C-alpha cells in the first residue's frame, strides 16, 4: 500500500484537490482513509489510475510505502442529523494546525506506530497518565528514578479541601 | 490630608526622572508593596515614613512630600532594603535623588559644612585641615613615637612618597582631634613592611559631598583624591571609611 496526501496527488495530476477527493469519494480511485487524514492506495491501483490519465508514474516512489498501516474503518459513519452533508465533507483540507502533529511540521508515520508509551516520572501526574493509557489499550513503561513511585504527593500529610490523607 | 487626584494629568515626575538616571530604572516600578524593606529598615517609623511608603508616594506622584521629608537624611542608604527586596528595587538611590532635590542651602548644616570644608582645599578634609597642617601633625606624632617607643625608631609615616604600593586615607578627624589613634595603624603597616604613603592632597577618607547628594562636589572630591593617588604613582588606594 502507498500512503498519499490529497494535496500532493492533486499536484501530480495537475487537478484541484477537491477533484481528487471526488475521485476517491465516487470510487474512481480506490483509496482508504487512515487516521492522519491520509489515504492508502494499492500501488497497482495508482499505476492503473496514472495509466488511465496518461501521467508519468515516476512520482509514485515519492510517496511512502505503507504495507501494514492500520486503516480506519472506511465505511464512513452515517450521519445522524445529515442536514448539511457538505459541511461534514470528510475530504476537507488537511491539517490546519491544531493538534500536535500539525503543530510540529507534520509527522509522517511510515509504519504502524508502536502501541506503547513511556511515562517518565512516577508522581501523581505520571501515575494518572499511565493508568489512562494502560486502561485504554496501550502498554506503558513507567520510568521512575527513585526506588518507588508516589512522588511529592506521597510526602504530603493531607490534602485540602477535604483534609483527606494524601495517600 | 485631602484626597489625591490622579489620572487626568501625568502624575509627578520625580520618580520617572530618577528612573531615567538609574540602570533598569532602579526597578522602581516593580514594587509589590510587600513591605519586606520596611520590615527590616531601622529608619522605619522615623518621620512617619518607611521605605515602602516613600517609594509608594513617589509612585503616586506625591513629589512634594517625597522631596521635602527630612526622612531622606535619616536613611543611611545602607541597602538592607535591596538585600531582601524580591524585585531588587533601588530605594537608596531614590533617597539620594530626593536629598538632591533639596535646595543646597536647606540641606542639613552638618553635612553641608563638612562638604564645603572638604572643598576648601585639596586635602579633602571634612574639617578643612590644610596640607601643611596635616604633614606637620603626621611628622610631629611620628617623631614623638619613634623617640618614646624605641622598637619603632625605624617606623615611617611617609607623606607624598612617589611610587608607594598603597595610598593611605585617614579619617579627617584623627589628625585633628585624636592623633594618637593613627599610630596603631602605622605600627601594623610598619611591622608587615608595607610600602605605603599618605598624600598631602586627598588624604581625607570620607566624602560628605556624596552624603549631601551634591554630584558636582562629590565628583570633584573623588577626582582630587584620584589625581593625588595617580600623581604619586600608587597602585592601591586604601580607604578605611
Amino acid at each position, binding site marked *: 500500500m502507498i500512503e498519499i496526501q490529497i494535496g500532493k496527488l492533486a499536484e501530480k495530476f495537475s487537478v484541484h484537490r477537491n477533484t481528487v477527493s471526488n475521485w476517491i469519494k465516487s470510487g474512481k480511485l480506490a483509496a482508504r482513509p487512515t487516521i492522519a487524514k491520509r489515504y492508502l492506495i494499492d500501488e497497482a491501483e495508482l499505476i492503473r489510475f496514472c495509466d488511465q490519465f496518461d501521467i508519468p508514474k515516476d512520482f509514485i516512489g515519492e510517496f511512502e510505502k505503507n504495507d501494514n498501516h492500520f486503516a480506519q474503518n472506511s465505511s464512513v459513519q452515517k450521519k445522524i442529523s445529515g442536514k448539511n452533508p457538505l459541511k461534514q465533507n470528510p475530504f476537507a483540507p488537511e491539517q490546519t494546525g491544531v493538534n500536535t502533529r500539525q503543530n510540529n511540521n507534520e509527522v509522517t508515520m511510515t509504519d504502524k506506530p508502536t502501541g506503547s508509551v513511556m511515562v517518565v516520572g512516577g508522581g501523581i501526574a505520571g501515575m494518572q497518565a499511565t493508568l489512562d493509557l494502560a486502561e485504554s489499550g496501550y502498554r506503558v513503561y513507567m520510568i521512575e528514578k527513585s526506588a518507588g513511585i508516589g512522588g511529592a504527593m506521597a510526602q504530603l500529610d493531607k490534602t485540602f479541601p477535604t483534609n483527606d490523607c494524601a495517600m | 490630608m485631602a484626597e489625591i487626584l490622579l489620572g487626568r494629568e501625568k502624575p509627578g515626575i520625580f520618580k520617572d526622572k530618577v528612573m531615567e538616571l538609574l540602570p533598569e530604572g532602579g526597578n522602581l516600578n516593580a514594587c509589590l508593596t510587600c513591605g519586606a524593606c520596611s520590615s*527590616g529598615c*531601622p*529608619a522605619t*517609623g*522615623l*518621620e512617619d515614613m518607611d521605605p515602602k511608603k516613600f517609594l509608594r508616594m513617589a509612585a503616586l506622584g506625591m513629589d512634594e512630600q517625597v522631596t521635602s521629608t*527630612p526622612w531622606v*537624611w*535619616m*536613611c*543611611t*542608604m*545602607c541597602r*538592607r532594603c535591596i*538585600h*531582601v527586596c524580591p524585585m531588587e528595587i533601588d530605594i537608596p538611590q531614590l533617597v539620594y535623588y530626593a536629598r538632591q532635590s533639596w535646595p543646597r542651602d536647606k540641606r*542639613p*548644616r*552638618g*553635612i553641608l*559644612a*563638612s562638604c564645603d570644608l572638604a572643598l576648601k582645599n585639596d586635602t579633602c578634609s571634612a574639617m578643612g585641615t590644610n596640607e601643611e597642617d596635616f604633614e606637620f601633625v603626621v611628622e610631629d606624632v611620628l617623631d614623638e*613615637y619613634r623617640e*618614646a*617607643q624605641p*622598637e*619603632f625608631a625605624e617606623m615611617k609615616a611617609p607623606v607624598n612618597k612617589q611610587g608607594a604600593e598603597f595610598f593611605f586615607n585617614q*579619617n579627617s*578627624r*584623627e589628625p585633628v582631634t*585624636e592623633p*594618637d*589613634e593613627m*599610630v*596603631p*595603624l602605622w*605600627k*601594623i603597616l610598619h*611591622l608587615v613592611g608595607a610600602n605605603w604613603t599618605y598624600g598631602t592632597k586627598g588624604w581625607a*577618607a*570620607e566624602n*560628605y559631598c556624596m*552624603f*549631601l547628594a551634591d554630584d558636582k562636589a562629590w565628583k570633584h572630591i573623588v577626582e582630587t583624591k584620584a589625581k593625588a593617588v595617580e600623581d604619586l604613582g600608587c597602585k592601591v588606594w586604601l580607604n*578605611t*571609611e
Partner: protein
Amino acid sequence: MAEDLRFVVKKVVGEENFVDMYPNKSNNYCCGGGGGFLQSGYAEERHKFGQIKTDQIIATKADYCITPCHNCHAQVHDLAEIHDHAWNTVHLWTLICLSLGILGPNERAYLGDDLAGVAVFHPESEM
C-alpha cells in the same frame, strides 16, 4: 572579605572570644552612623535608628564591639554612651596592636577598664 575580617578578629581575640551578632554580614543592620546621618543633626532620630543595633550588640553579651569605620565608631560609641556604657567600641587596629603587645599608653582611648592596663607598651611614654 567578611570571612577574611573574621579570620583576623578571631586570631587577635581568640576564637572563643569572638561573638558574631545576628543577623550578620550582608544582612546585618546599619548602625545609623553612615550616609551622613551622623552629621545631619537629627540626633534623637539617629538614636532611635540605632536601637536595633544596640539590642543586637547587647544580645551578644560581648564587652567590646569592633567597628569598621569612623562613622560607625562614632555612632556605636554614642549608642553605648546612652545605654550606660553597655560595651566598649574599638577600632580593629587597636586590638591588633594590643594582641601584638605594641599598644602604647596613649593609643588606648577606647579600651575599657578591663583592658586599659593590659600589656601596656612603654607605659612610661604616657602623656
